[in-house]
């Protein structure tokens, strides 16, 4: 009884219309967003998939049943799924399940790295353009639009071709082609707050433009940026896998999912699982990011609804 009583008061505290502190207001808002988010079943599936991906990546060594690199060339080549090899084995006798589990780390590596390169670049370009206005804005946005008009995959391909194949170069190439939408979003958000009273107030207090952009404008752009980055994750994963598939991403023997599909391609007619399993893993993880992104967008901006 007292438990529910306490829970009720905590809820009331969170939902209070007159928060006593900034902290309470912030938590309250987060709680409301969370309630909207968690009411969306598909979004929860997405969240589950992404949490599962994190767990698998963290515990890869524990979850793996075999070695991801050393296979049993003599006895275990191209075995179908069985109790010993859940997803079968590849042409080098390696356990596919194990390789997929370890591959989750590479997927996360790519996604996280692209996000922490591209998002800040886009954020900086967009907020500076939006706040500075004038010719700075014109030039920065022209450059952004130019990059936006490029075919991303083909350009990433050319970049990697010049830089040399490898997972780091693939990350770099994808990041170079992914920042423009973030810049556009950040600029749009900046324009909506630039002339607001509170920015005027901060300006009057003598804050430098640098400080205003960094401390006051950038934080306001974060939530829409996070939504967009989450929605882009699937595309990043697919591009990375595509580069891997073409032999430009992670190099053997790394268990990158796209490269695994490429190496399973030769056996697709008879040993479909070699290419089938990693592709399915890509599908599930991208789906997870898409569902999560959709859910976040709906929870943070209820107006966007089904549009």
């Amino acid at each position, binding site marked *: 009884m007292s438990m529910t009583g306490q829970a009720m008061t905590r809820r009331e505290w969170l939902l209070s219309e007159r928060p006593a502190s900034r902290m309470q207001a912030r938590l309250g808002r987060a709680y409301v967003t969370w309630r909207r988010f968690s009411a969306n079943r598909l979004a929860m599936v997405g969240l589950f998939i992404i949490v599962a991906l994190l767990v698998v990546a963290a515990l890869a060594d524990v979850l793996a049943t075999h070695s991801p690199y050393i296979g049993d060339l003599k006895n275990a080549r191209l075995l179908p799924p069985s109790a010993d090899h859940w997803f079968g084995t590849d042409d080098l006798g390696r356990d596919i399940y194990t390789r997929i589990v370890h591959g989750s780390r590479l997927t996360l590596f790519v996604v996280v790295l692209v996000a922490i390169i591209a998002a800040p670049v886009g954020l900086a370009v967009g907020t500076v353009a939006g706040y500075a206005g004038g010719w700075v804005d014109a030039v920065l946005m022209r450059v952004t639009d130019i990059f936006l008009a490029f075919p991303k995959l083909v350009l990433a*391909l050319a*970049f990697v071709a010049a830089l040399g194949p490898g997972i780091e170069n693939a990350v770099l190439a994808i990041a170079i082609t992914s920042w423009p939408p973030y810049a556009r979003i950040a600029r749009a958000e900046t324009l909506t707050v630039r002339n607001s009273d509170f920015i005027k107030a901060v300006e009057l207090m003598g804050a430098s433009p640098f400080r205003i952009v960094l401390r006051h404008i950038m934080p306001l752009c974060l939530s829409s940026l996070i939504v967009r980055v989450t929605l882009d994750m699937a595309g990043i994963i697919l591009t990375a896998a595509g580069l891997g598939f073409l032999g430009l991403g992670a190099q053997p023997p790394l268990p990158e999912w796209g490269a695994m599909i490429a190496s399973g391609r030769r056996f*697709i007619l008879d040993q479909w699982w070699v290419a089938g399993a990693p592709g399915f893993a890509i599908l599930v993880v991208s789906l997870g990011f898409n569902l999560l992104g959709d859910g976040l967008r709906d929870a943070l901006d209820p107006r966007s609804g089904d549009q």
Partner: protein
Amino acid sequence: MSVVETEGGRARGSDRALAIAGGIGRFLLIAVSTYLGLLAVTFFIGRVIPIDPVLAVLGDRAPESVVERTRREMGLDLPLIEQFWIYLKAAVNGDFGTSVLTTNPVMADIRRVFPATIELASVGTLIGTILGIPLGVLAAVKRGSLVDQLVRVVGLIGYSVPIFWLALLALVLFYAKLQWVAFPGRIDIVYQYTFTPITGFYLIDAALQGQWDVFWDVFRHIILPGALLGYFSLAYISRMTRSFMLNELSQEYIVAARAKGLSETRIIWGHALRNAAVPMVTVIALSYAGLLEGSVLTETVFSWPGIGLYITDSLQNADMNAVLGGTIVIGSVFIAINLFSDLLYRVLDPRTKTR
């Protein structure tokens, strides 16, 4: 706003001419700067990133004399900006150098392979549009219905599935297991030498010459990759159609149309869709551009002799001229489609005409 009620047509006319001239000027600025940007980036990729661009172009097996000559030909002893100028002039003239792999000029190679890609992307867009628009309309009209769920699932999977993987599975199923479609490639080896293409679009060529057996064979080759690209186009187009239609259906003019006593069919297809069609043009154009780009991954799986396969083959052989030439061509077409769709939007929307 009320352009019409103001008299004095002459003043208005010149305003309009000015606006149009400004529009064209802006359009040219955007087109030229975007294209320059593309060339600058490819220049950067081809000449600045590689430690030795000559090596990147020729590979490491070329004899010393050839390397020296190429180095001079590429003007690598000149300042970077001058190099870029030379590069620009060449690129604008369609001179992307020679392919190491085929020993032809890259442009000649691309001219040969590009129709295959265009044909494939066109079939894909056609399938995606013909199925995607009605599906999207139905999903919007019957929200929450089975069709709506279908569009949602098709969209989610379309946005999440690796295209090359789906292509492989499709080959296993439709070619190997069911034997409904032909072996990867564009045309059967039997016809390879008897059939003379005219336009480079085999379906059209075969039909023009009345060679219906060839047409059928080409069809059996193109249908699987076409349907696959069509699926991705469908995922995008149906989702966007749904969202545009939902927006239109909530407008007041729809209430007015109902108040006039129009049938639902007429309201949906005659009014709402006509309004949604304006932004749809952009979506279809973007989807087409996306398929051109997607050809890089699809063509390798289906051994489709288009520009995508050309680029990936060149990649495997470190044939940088060919890779960059292909990138520039795809990039140019991509940019052109983007700009064109923007233009078309203006033409189609009566509201933008007088502004």
